[in-house]
């Protein structure tokens, strides 16, 4: 707030008063001028002290909080906390975007006949029940499908979380075309899951793919170099918590008045904490009839001008996810999720073919089980709540088909420690049989 005298014609001398007349001359001048005041420069000393403060803070792990203590409650945060707090690893983990999350949770609301808190419900009770009925084996599932989850996010979940004592036997990964060709996403590092997941591992080896923009990479590198900058979200959260506590004493909510709910606050400030999800805020409710919502306008934007950089980058993360699972002995079931013809018609044929073939080929080459629900033509528009998301009825159909194929798949049965089936012809999924093995392998190698 300090003010100094304005620079006008009247005090032109003042404008020039910073001009320096050096005592030295010639080449010595530059060096001597530079060094003359170096050790008394306030900004130099302040920068050195700041660097020392950062170094000391890093040395003593100042204010570091556990990775799972998130500064903000989000879908991802709730899922990770729930996953890590389990006593043992689940047998089956679901991965995917809302294409998987919505029908799987919706089916459970109907199946359990009660509303389910989206922040707390991370299993598929219906899937567990169907699989038990089909195979006689009780399994525990965990639904790690998250809104907006991209293959890059699924890769981070797999790499950072599905390991050691948390390693599942089977991963069921539902994929849709949006996962590879979403124009609205600037880069893989722009998702909400990414922000939460990078707390659990080092992404520096893949940072050029996660954040292709140089400024994002610079931001990442600064956060690694300067301890306080890297920890800023946690520090701010801690500070806000502390300040809130103090304010509750100094400026309490007036007697007889109620604090604003999250919905009220969201109405006033729609852009504040866009990824926030609180407990008891998003429910999946039992329902029979679903209203169909037309979301074509949104998907027109998503699919317009496919960015092939994004496509190949996400496809590479997908391939690497399959590699990691293979290395860790996790059997992957890839589910090609159905979408409506309305939505499909927005995608150019060559983009659609590239998506379909790449997913199929990679799944087969990497030893995953491929369940092609898009190709079955079992689903029609009445199974959907909008042009891409299955409603609970469609979800039930989807899980029935997935369980059916998993129960017959040799690799899945082995992973789940189920006895082998007598009929050898049923050991492969139907769609895998449709492409000759050699052709798939060749195509897979060229795709990679």
């Amino acid at each position, binding site marked *: *707030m300090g003010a100094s005298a304005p620079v006008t014609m009247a005090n032109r001398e003042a404008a020039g008063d910073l001009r320096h007349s050096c005592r030295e001359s010639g080449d010595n001048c530059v060096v001597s001028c530079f060094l003359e005041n170096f050790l008394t420069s*306030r900004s130099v000393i302040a920068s050195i002290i700041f660097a020392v403060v950062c170094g000391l803070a890093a040395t003593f792990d100042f204010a570091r909080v556990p990775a799972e203590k998130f500064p903000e409650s989000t879908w991802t945060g709730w899922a990770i906390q729930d996953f890590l707090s389990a006593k043992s690893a689940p047998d089956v983990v679901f991965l995917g975007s809302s294409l998987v999350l919505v029908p799987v949770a919706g089916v459970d609301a109907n199946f359990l006949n009660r509303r389910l808190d989206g922040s707390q419900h991370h299993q598929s009770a219906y899937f567990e029940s169907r699989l038990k009925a089909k195979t006689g084996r009780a399994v525990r599932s965990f639904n790690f499908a998250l809104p907006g989850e991209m293959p890059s996010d699924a890769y981070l979940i797999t790499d950072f979380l599905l390991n050691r004592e948390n390693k599942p036997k089977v991963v069921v990964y539902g994929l849709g075309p949006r996962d590879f060709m979403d124009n609205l996403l600037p880069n893989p590092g722009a998702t909400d899951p990414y922000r939460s997941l990078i707390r659990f591992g080092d992404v520096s080896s893949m940072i050029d793919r996660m954040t292709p923009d140089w400024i994002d990479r610079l931001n990442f590198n600064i956060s690694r170099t300067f301890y306080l900058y890297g920890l800023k979200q946690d520090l701010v959260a801690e500070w806000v918590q502390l300040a809130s506590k103090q304010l509750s004493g100094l400026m309490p909510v*007036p007697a007889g008045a109620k604090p604003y709910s999250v919905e009220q606050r969201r109405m*006033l400030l729609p852009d504040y904490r866009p990824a926030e999800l609180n407990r008891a805020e998003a429910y999946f409710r039992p329902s029979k009839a679903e209203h169909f919502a037309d979301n074509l306008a949104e998907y027109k934007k998503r699919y317009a001008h496919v960015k092939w950089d994004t496509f190949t980058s996400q496809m590479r993360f997908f391939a690497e996810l399959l590699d990691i699972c293979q290395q860790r002995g996790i059997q992957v079931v890839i589910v090609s999720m159905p979408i409506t013809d309305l939505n499909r018609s927005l995608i150019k044929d060559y983009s659609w073919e590239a998506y379909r073939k790449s997913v199929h080929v990679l799944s087969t080459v990497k030893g995953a089980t491929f369940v092609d629900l898009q190709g079955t033509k079992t689903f029609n528009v009445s199974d959907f709540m909008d042009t891409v998301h299955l409603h609970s009825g469609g979800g039930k159909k989807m899980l029935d088909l997935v369980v059916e194929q998993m129960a017959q798949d040799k690799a899945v049965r082995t992973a789940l420690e189920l006895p082998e089936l007598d009929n050898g012809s049923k050991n492969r999924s139907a769609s895998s049989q449709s492409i000759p093995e050699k052709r798939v392998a060749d195509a897979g190698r060229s795709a990679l």
Partner: protein
Amino acid sequence: MLFNSLQYLVFLPTVFVLFWITPHRFRVPLLLVASYVFYMSWRPIYGLLIFGLTLGNFLLVPLIAKATEQKDKKWWLGVVVAANLITLGIFKYATFSLITVKDTLNLFGVQFREPHLHIILPLGISFFVFEFIHYAVEVYRGKPLVKKFFDFALFASFFPTQIAGPIKRYQDFIPQLDIPAKFKWQYLDEGMQLILMGLFKKVLIADNLALVSQAGFSHPGNFSSLDLWLITYAFAFQIFFDFAGYTDIARGSALLFGYKVPINFNLPYIASNVADFWHRWHISLSTWLRDYLFIPLGGSRCSQWKMYRNLFITMTLGGLWHGAAMHFLVWGAYQGILLIAHREYSRLLEKSGLAKSLLQSKIYHAVSVVVTFHFVCIGWVFFRAENMQDACAIISQLVQAPAALLHFSMQQLSVLQIRDPIVFPALLIILPILMIAQPVVNWLNDKRFYLSPPWALQVGVMVALMCLLTIFSPDSSPRFIYFQF
């Protein structure tokens, strides 16, 4: 490129180092290139606009100087000023004018569908057009021409002041370019201090208060009249710290190269009347309006009625300069009316023969400051409201505050019910601190504290600011309010 972005964190030190290792004769071209890179990082095509205007003014203004007859000088001045204003008008006011024509015709029952122009306002155009007009008028008044094109081009495009001022005077700026300066740590120290302080004002104060004004001005119906006063105060400080923060960063950035640019603010909320406020608020604009609009209109050397007319026109056009919208126009007119009312009030006081001791008493001064602040705040409602309808609704709520105070209870304050973000309940602590801080800083200024604060204190403040800004820097960089103008 925003001052509060990582891009600028890379850009500024790069230009700084290049500048000081470059021989003096290449420094102006270097800064010119840097300034165009800075400008074109937003929309490359608009680099042509600023270049075209620069070239046009550089070629046309000498014709004013060369003209021997006064009427020729005037004619050429008219051409230059009109060319600049037409350019500004096309980019800034074309859509607004068409909408106003449509609304007016609709009033008379004439249906008119205005064409959609799809014009994107070039950043900083209001600022550099005003600098060009200032140059033309000064040359017309007999001041020397700028001989070197690069100097002139840098005057208009100098990146620290390019987007939102301060509006420079060429007589102050151009001579600085000729001085073959050697690097001095003092530039870095003073520049860094200003930049850190500017970022502090923007990131920690203005951006937090922005949440309050955003909620309040977009949903005024959700708040009581007392809440709306708090929200209006919050906006008053938001816009001050936002713009003052920007100006500090601009001045600090310029200082890194050894250049001084004018200040824009001098504790505006301790002004004891509206005229005083305009001597302290956006000083480079208010002095421009005085020199190139108010005085040419006749200034105060005319009849009282004409002087009031001149004041009103100056302030109304000053309001319209901020944006092509009716609420800015009304805000400007309101300021004009306040200035006229203040003059009348002063005249009445003089006539009434009230004791001088009373007028000069501290109590009278304090009351004047408080009253002025509230008049200014009412003006901010017009400035910030999304449209005139909202502004009127908020003002009608604000005037009910005295009645609400008679039956005051804490339950009337909805801001206390919003616990997240915490800036809402904290308003009752933050606002008094910000209000008290202004006279305290003024007192420190009087004591000349800022001329020689202890060395250790300066370093301590810099380290504290570095830590705070590191921790509280936002993930995305909100724009400065004055970028839209």
